[in-house]
């Protein structure tokens, strides 16, 4: 107090913050709040901020309290200097001021005023009140705490605050950990997007990650069926294949929360207060607690629904948990759609490749040139439909100028059918001693092929024809195959010859009858597969054997050149089909006695 003002100001006071407030209570109160914020920026602890706020309020209020009408026109100035070890405040007013009391004590408890100076003194280390005719300055100093020097050394409160801080920290850590886990999970899922992972396994892992993060204890995942009418369950957690709930119809929105969520495109919450419908299949999985049904879409197309439930906890999901659910399920939806596209693409690629292989095999089985068998002339054709590869024909010199004609249709398609065709061809070619006994040859081939064919539930229809130029006859045997069609010169129409017989691969011991048909000069015969008679016209009518017989008669009358006849016949067949695509292979062997 005895120090000259100048020395105090010059040596120790450094203005760091200067505020002017109107000389009224509310204005100086606002100024003290600004100072508090500024000191908080300087890193003062909470207890010091509270002490400074109250001390400054009391000091500034004093300035206002003693202002007369003219002094109220002049501002109160607050200057703060914040050093490393000490904070100093200077409150300057231009009022009449007051006499600093000899002792700053608390008034009587009954007193309604007189506590301000006591509070200021209690909250600061030093108070200097400098009174001047024109202005008064109150200087307040308070040391900054070096290490937790507390304003109010209340250990209990400190412990409470510490506990609060620790609890907050624990919460934040938990939240951060949860976010971190979510992020890690999401990144992991991102890395799997596009990879060909097992969908069920991926979904199970995703839901198992999601459940603890959302505090759910059960989950049901359903995917929309391929016809788009049902929701089929893919997963139930906890649980296994046996506990999968039955499919539900999408139309059953009234009795199924899952169908409802999908139909209304809105999450459906259920719990004690919004109970599931009595017939809701979810009740079997989630009889108690509460939960949430969420339907998910990709490109506006329903993909499925996921339901998370809490059997035990009463509290519903928080907004953050619902966000997490949506994020995870978005990933799942993309993965599901990716997996489906991938499957379709792979299947399409496999099929295309397989059909290519089948077609290659089939082509390799066909004879590259037609053996001579005068006076007979032979022409053959094998047109493949897109998806089929089971037809083949063979023309094998049978000794003495004779020819063995083979025509067959393996039931089935793709590589297996083509392979059996190859096996049949080799089997027949391996028995030249039987070439002139087509019935016996078929019986032997049947015994050989039966075990393999029956194992895969396949069979082959085949017809063998021994063309004998010396006798000018054709001897045929049929294993469930289309008949031989023959047109004799001068006959009014062509006719079908022979019994169909049993296909190869049906019975192990089958006898095959032989039919000998004369083929005199000018006669025409046709061996074919049912792809020929089963073609349909634009009206959807099948050609049938009768029409084919007529076509054969026309062909015979048209030309004596068997190649030309073949082209004529194929042309007629194509005319009949019109724009309709071939649904089966078309194979034929045309024979004419050109003697």
């Amino acid at each position, binding site marked *: 107090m005895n120090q000259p003002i100048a020395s105090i100001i010059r040596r120790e006071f450094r203005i760091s913050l200067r505020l002017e407030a109107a000389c*009224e*209570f*509310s204005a100086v*109160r606002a100024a003290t709040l600004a100072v508090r914020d500024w000191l908080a920026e300087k890193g003062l602890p909470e207890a010091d901020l*509270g002490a400074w*706020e*109250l001390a400054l*309020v*009391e000091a500034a*209020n004093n300035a*206002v*309290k003693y202002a007369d009408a003219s002094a109220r026109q002049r501002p109160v100035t607050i200057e703060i200097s914040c050093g490393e070890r000490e904070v100093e405040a200077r409150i300057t007013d231009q009022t009449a001021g007051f006499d600093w009391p000899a002792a700053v004590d*608390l008034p009587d*408890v*009954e*007193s*309604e*005023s*007189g*506590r*301000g100076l*006591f*509070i200021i003194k*209690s909250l600061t280390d030093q108070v200097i009140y400098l009174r001047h005719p024109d202005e008064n300055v109150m200087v307040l100093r308070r040391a900054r705490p070096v290490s937790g020097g507390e304003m*109010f050394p*209340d250990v209990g*409160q400190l412990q409470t605050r510490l506990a609060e801080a620790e609890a907050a920290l624990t919460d934040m850590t938990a939240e951060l950990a949860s976010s971190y886990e979510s992020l890690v999970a999401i990144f992991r899922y991102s890395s799997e997007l596009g990879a060909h992972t097992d969908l069920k396994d991926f979904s199970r892992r995703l839901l198992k990650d999601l459940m603890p993060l959302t505090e759910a204890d059960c989950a049901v995942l359903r995917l929309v069926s391929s016809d788009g009418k049902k929701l089929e369950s893919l997963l139930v957690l906890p649980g296994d294949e046996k506990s999968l709930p039955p499919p539900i119809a999408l139309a059953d929105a009234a009795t199924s929360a899952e169908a409802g969520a999908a139909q209304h495109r809105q999450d459906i919450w259920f719990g004690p207060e919004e109970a599931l419908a009595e017939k809701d299949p979810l009740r079997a999985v989630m009889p108690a607690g509460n939960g949430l049904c969420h339907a998910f879409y990709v490109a506006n197309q329903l993909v499925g629904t996921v339901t998370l439930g809490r059997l035990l906890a009463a509290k519903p999901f928080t907004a953050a948990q619902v966000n997490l659910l949506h994020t995870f399920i978005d990933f799942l939806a993309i993965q599901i759609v990716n997996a489906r596209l991938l499957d379709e693409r792979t299947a399409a690629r496999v099929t295309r490749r397989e059909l290519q292989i089948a077609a290659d095999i089939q082509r390799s089985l066909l004879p590259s040139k037609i053996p001579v068998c005068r006076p007979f002339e032979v022409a053959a054709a094998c047109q493949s439909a897109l998806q089929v590869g089971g037809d083949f024909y063979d023309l094998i010199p049978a000794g003495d100028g004779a020819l063995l004609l083979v025509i067959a249709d393996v039931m089935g398609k793709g590589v297996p059918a083509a392979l059996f065709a190859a096996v049949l061809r080799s089997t027949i070619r391996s028995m030249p001693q039987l070439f002139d006994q087509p019935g016996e040859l078929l019986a032997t081939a049947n015994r050989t092929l039966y075990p393999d064919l029956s194992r895969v539930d396949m069979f082959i229809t085949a017809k063998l024809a021994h063309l004998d130029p010396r006798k000018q006859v054709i001897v045929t045997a049929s294993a469930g195959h289309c008949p031989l069609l023959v047109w004799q010169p001068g006959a009014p129409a062509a006719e079908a010859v022979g019994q169909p017989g049993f296909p190869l691969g049906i019975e192990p011991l089958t006898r095959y009858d032989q039919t000998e048909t004369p083929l005199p000069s000018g006669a025409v015969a046709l061996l074919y597969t049912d792809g020929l008679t089963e073609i349909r016209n634009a009206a959807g009518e099948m050609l049938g054997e009768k029409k084919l017989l007529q076509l054969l008669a026309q062909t015979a009358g048209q030309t004596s050149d068997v190649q030309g006849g073949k082209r004529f016949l194929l042309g007629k067949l194509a005319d009949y089909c019109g724009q309709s695509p071939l649904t089966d292979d078309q194979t034929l062997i045309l024979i004419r006695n050109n003697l």
Partner: protein
Amino acid sequence: MHIQNPDAQTAVVTGLVELVAANAAQVRDDIRAALPATTVRLDLDLSALTFLDSSGLGTLVSLNKTLRSRNGTVRLLQPAPNVRQVLELTRLHRVFEITP
């Protein structure tokens, strides 16, 4: 600030946010004016009070005197730590019944 009278003897004041020089006299007068003659217990709910200065303390002392003149009491309910510290610093915690 709201003043309610749950019964003839009791008045409850809630919603005090600051009790400082700027509003201390007004709050004191408002509460006094709203007190029915029969009120012998005044509960000041301080749970919302963020700041209390010496003028505010004056209001509390004044209201306490009013009630005491009726053989009544003033209770201070749930003051925040900083408010409680001011009461303790000025030893007024010995005068009022303070309910945490």
